[in-house]
């Protein structure tokens, strides 16, 4: 009797998915080849049982079709248990055929047909002859070498895409968001910051962050640089992705590839299919304040060292008319206020927004490479969240969808709380019983064929795949 029998949830002998397809080699295309998706979830407190339950629910919806891939997202609760993520990933490994592609990561919250959850596991399963699958992993190097990480993943996926004759090529990827380096917010560092001159603080900041990204798997996620490299290789493809994030503690956000758990890697899944689809990157759900700031950038253009020629943090607080104690050193505290007042600028006609994040002395340390010397303060808006969602859902509600996936921003559940169910009701109405999953992460990634990939915050990326009928 194996462990699964003991759990009493799922018996291996009950599973008969038939022939295993390693889809990279399956390139025969038929016009009406069916593709099937399923979405399952679990709130079991045990990570293994949660993985089993969510996978089982998702796979059952494939109606006997063998799964070719699963995407697994879980909240940070499981990451804080001893080997919690390893045990969770063991579950699909135990009950699915070998060579089912698996990617995923930690997420702040999710919405699926069963409800809205800030604790739990969600699984997407997909299969059928109408879809070809491949997957790739960068080896966990994105923080120290994002260009190489992007190159490794995109060339591997591109090679597999070339073998598929199907029309649409979609890369789904999961990357890390910034992790607060404990060395930067420690009591010792904070004491040093209070006595050191500003120039020395800037040097200390740069040294800590450089050390963090090179050796410690902390610091910025560096999604922009990785995505630009991916764009070069996968020019004729779609890209949709999310930056992993936890419950705003900013400690436990991991990525999954097969049975591996990594703190700083790109896990990517390539999908090729002929079905029609709708792919949108909604602009940030913010309102512009008109309050602009001239900035002097620091360390790798990821930081703001001066605002309007003055120490950055004091001037930023003055503009917002906020007291000094709003400049908290921990990201967890920042999410209570500052997160809802992002900074933004226009690049190639697109509005880019990002949180005015981690404060270290008088420096503002952000999550993206800032490519301007003038930024504007934005206001996040509940109204814009619903307006933007309504617009997308109107475009799919008269179509028969086989699957819908939205990568949304982590501030949305933070904003809406129990009103997240209003979003769910809208999605339920538009998708009419077909599977969907909304993931709330710390950054949204997207690219359409011929375009440069975009990493944004406070935005949303939408993908709906339609039935062939």
């Amino acid at each position, binding site marked *: 009797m194996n462990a699964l029998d003991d759990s009493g949830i799922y018996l291996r002998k009950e599973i008969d998915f038939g022939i295993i397809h390693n889809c990279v080699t399956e390139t025969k295309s038929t016009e009406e080849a069916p593709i099937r998706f399923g979405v399952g979830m679990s709130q079991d407190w045990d990570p293994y049982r949660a993985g089993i339950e969510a996978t089982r629910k998702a796979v059952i919806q494939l109606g006997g079709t063998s799964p070719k891939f699963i995407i697994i997202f879980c909240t940070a609760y499981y990451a804080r248990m001893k080997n919690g993520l390893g045990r969770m990933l063991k579950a699909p490994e135990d009950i699915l055929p070998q060579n089912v592609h698996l990617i995923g990561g930690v997420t702040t919250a999710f919405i699926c047909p069963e409800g809205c959850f800030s604790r739990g596991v969600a699984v997407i399963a997909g299969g059928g002859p109408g879809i070809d699958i491949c997957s790739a992993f960068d080896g966990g190097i994105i923080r120290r070498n994002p260009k190489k990480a992007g190159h490794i993943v995109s060339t591997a996926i591109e090679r597999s895409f070339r073998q598929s004759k199907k029309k649409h090529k979609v890369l789904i990827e999961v990357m890390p968001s910034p992790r607060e380096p404990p060395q930067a917010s420690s009591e010792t560092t904070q004491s040093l910051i209070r006595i050191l001159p500003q120039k020395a603080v800037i040097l200390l900041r740069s040294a800590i962050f450089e050390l963090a990204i090179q050796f410690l798997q902390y610091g910025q996620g560096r999604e922009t640089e990785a995505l630009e490299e991916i764009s070069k290789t996968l020019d004729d493809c779609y890209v949709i992705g999310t930056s992993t994030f936890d419950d705003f503690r900013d400690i436990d956000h991991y990525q999954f590839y097969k049975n591996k758990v990594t703190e700083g890697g790109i896990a990517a899944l390539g999908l090729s299919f002929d079905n029609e689809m709708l792919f949108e990157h909604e602009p940030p759900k913010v309102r512009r304040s008109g309050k602009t700031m001239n900035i002097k950038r620091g360390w790798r253009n990821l930081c703001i060292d001066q605002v309007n020629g003055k120490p950055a943090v004091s001037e930023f607080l003055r503009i917002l008319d906020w007291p000094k104690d709003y400049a908290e050193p921990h990201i967890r505290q920042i999410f209570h206020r500052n997160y809802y007042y992002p900074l933004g600028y226009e690049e190639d006609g697109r509005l880019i927004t990002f949180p005015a994040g981690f404060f270290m002395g008088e420096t503002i340390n952000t999550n993206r490479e800032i490519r301007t010397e003038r930024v504007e303060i934005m206001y996040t808006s509940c109204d814009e969240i619903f307006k933007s969602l309504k617009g997308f859902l109107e475009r799919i509600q008269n179509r028969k969808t086989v699957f819908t996936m939205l990568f949304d921003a982590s501030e949305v559940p*933070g904003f809406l709380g129990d009103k997240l169910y209003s979003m769910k009701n809208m999605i339920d109405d538009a998708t009419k019983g077909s599977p969907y999953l909304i993931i709330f992460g710390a950054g949204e990634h997207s690219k359409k064929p011929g375009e440069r990939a975009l990493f944004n915050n406070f935005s949303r990326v939408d993908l709906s795949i339609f039935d062939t009928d």
Partner: protein
Amino acid sequence: MISKEEDILKVLSEDLLRLEDIHACMVVRKNLEGIVPITEEFKAEITEIWSMLKDTLNEFFDIISHYSKYGLNKIYFELGKYDVIFFILPGSDTALVAIVPALANRGLLEVEMENARRKILRIIETEGT
């Protein structure tokens, strides 16, 4: 047969109290009459200020009983390092109450509190004891 009270207690203990940021929770009306898990299940941090919290949150039930019929849905107050969140059971004088650290993300906790409120309402609405 498991009573409705036991089912609700299970929701409080299993779904909410196990969350790191829920320090205490209960389904109560004025004078804290209702379903309260044993205080040993509450996080140790709040025990020293529990009596003050209890008195303060009790005052809010006057507002709840007055305005619940008009659709009052939620109330919050902050007391020192803690937030107290009331999720009112629709049209009643009773609320699901949770005490959480002020630093916690209230939105994320609300999502799970709403799931608990829905479960509690389902238990109340089912026939039987």
